[in-house]
């Protein structure tokens, strides 16, 4: 708890000393961190490996984009609305995908996300097809305030979403519900035989994951000012899974660090070479081979070595 508070204070003070371009990068890192953390709920706590988590992000982004473009609903309200909508769709997606387990589950998540991608390409009136939605505004309000439309105000909104989501997710995994999820992760057949309707628990955690992932996408649309089909593409699903694994699964905090690390490496390497993804691939392989517990696990290991 003290650690959480210290990080919150640090992040809250950062805008005072950072140049604008760094603020942009930091805001994006927080959005991506929220997205990766949402996937960790599924991957790290229930061993539900999704290859289609971009669906949550894209749903959030398109929903928020449409709300902001076509209504007067203020930005701080549009974002959670889009998250909740994404969660609703997540229930349907989970209902289909949990018909299967293991690799088949993963393939179904990929298939449904690609289905949404294809729909986004054709449904011009809602998604703008290949042009996407452009000029998404940051509507002022509530009560007429324009604070959240500013760079710093938007940063604080993002930070609030990330911390709120983190506290929610942490309470979730520590609750009786979370204990059942860990049971499913370690031995689903046993959990079922103890009298838990494991499929309902899985659908519930996917819905929670989609709400938070949708929240991240909903922040991205007004952050970038646009939403396009790339936000639903499998490439993003793969990237966020890599962020979770590199950061450390089943830790919530790890994936946030993983997302920041991914963006930093991408930003640094892409100034030198277009093939930055190739180098990140090597980093990813190194993590899987030598530090499967991720960045957070590495940090904890070092700390425990030093204290001995």
């Amino acid at each position, binding site marked *: 708890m003290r650690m959480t508070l210290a990080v919150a204070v640090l992040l809250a003070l950062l805008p005072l000393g950072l140049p604008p371009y760094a603020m942009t990068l930091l805001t994006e890192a927080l959005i991506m961190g929220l997205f990766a953390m949402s996937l960790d709920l599924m991957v790290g706590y229930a061993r539900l490996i999704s290859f289609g988590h971009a669906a949550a992000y894209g749903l959030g982004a398109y929903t928020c984009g449409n709300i902001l473009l076509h209504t007067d609903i203020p930005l701080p309200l549009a974002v959670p609305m889009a998250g909740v909508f994404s969660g609703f769709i997540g229930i349907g997606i989970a209902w289909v995908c949990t018909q299967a387990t293991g690799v088949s589950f993963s393939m179904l998540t990929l298939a449904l996300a690609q289905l949404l991608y294809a729909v986004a390409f054709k449904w011009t009136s809602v998604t703008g097809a290949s042009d996407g939605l452009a000029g998404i505004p940051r509507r002022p309000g509530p009560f007429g305030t324009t604070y959240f439309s500013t760079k710093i105000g938007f940063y604080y909104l993002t930070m609030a979403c990330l911390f709120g989501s983190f506290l929610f997710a942490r309470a979730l995994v520590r609750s009786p*519900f979370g*204990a059942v999820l860990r049971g499913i992760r370690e031995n689903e057949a046993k*959990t079922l*035989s*103890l*009298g838990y309707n494991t499929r309902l628990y899985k659908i519930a955690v996917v819905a929670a994951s989609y709400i938070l992932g949708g929240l991240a996408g909903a922040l991205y649309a007004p952050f970038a000012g646009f939403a396009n089909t790339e936000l639903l593409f499998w490439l993003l699903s793969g990237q966020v899974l890599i962020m979770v694994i590199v950061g450390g699964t089943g830790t919530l905090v790890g994936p946030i660090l993983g997302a920041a690390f991914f963006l930093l490496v991408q930003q640094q390497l892409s100034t030198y070479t277009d093939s930055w993804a190739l180098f990140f691939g090597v980093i990813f392989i190194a993590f899987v081979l030598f530090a499967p517990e991720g960045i957070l696990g590495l940090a904890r290991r070092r700390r425990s070595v030093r204290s001995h």
Partner: protein
Amino acid sequence: MALLELQGLTKRYGGIVAVDNVTMSVEPGEVRAVIGPNGAGKTSLFHLITGVVKPTMGEIVFDGQRVTAMPAFSRCQLGMSRTFQITALFPEMSARENTRLAAQARDKQRWRPLGGGAVFAEASRRGDAALERLGLSHVAERQAGLLSHGDQRLLEVAMALAQQPRLLLMDEPTQGLSVEETAQAVEVLGGLFAGGGLTVLLVEHDMEVVFRLASKMTVLHRGSVIADGDPATVKADPVVQDAYLGGYT
């Protein structure tokens, strides 16, 4: 009234009849063993009772309620707890967390997504009591996957007991144990059953174990019941000796 009743239960796989018109019952307070040679249909019968597979014909009645079409997890909610032939645990959790999660399944608020301190406290209390009954308190904080094979088997029984079951179903409780471990397990289980209050249906092929633990026996042969009664009667039955015991006396 019987706690569990099987009425004309039949399971066919294609042309093979695994369970053939089995009618039997388990009375409250008895420890009943289902025995039979390999391929007699013991495991198939167990799967039908626990709800892993659905019967081709016949009915399963638990405490006066028809449960034939009920999914496995709902039968468990009615008070049927089971152990597996191949030990099934949560290997990365401690022994305490294993029994706690088992006990939590009996709580109305088992799904609570936030808070839940009271749920955990009550489940821990029941779980710890079950560990103590099986003499596992000294390994409570150890990771379940690192316990000895014998202790793992007992931990699984503790998980079932933590659910305060009305009917305890055990699939070959000494399967895969060494001679010494089997003797120990029979010792502990015998003490547990002697304490009374439990209704048990166990499937087992080890005769020593069955005669030490069971108060009633049902003998299966090629999917059908060929004998039913107390151990001494069953042992003396010429049909049983011919079909199965093969001179074992």
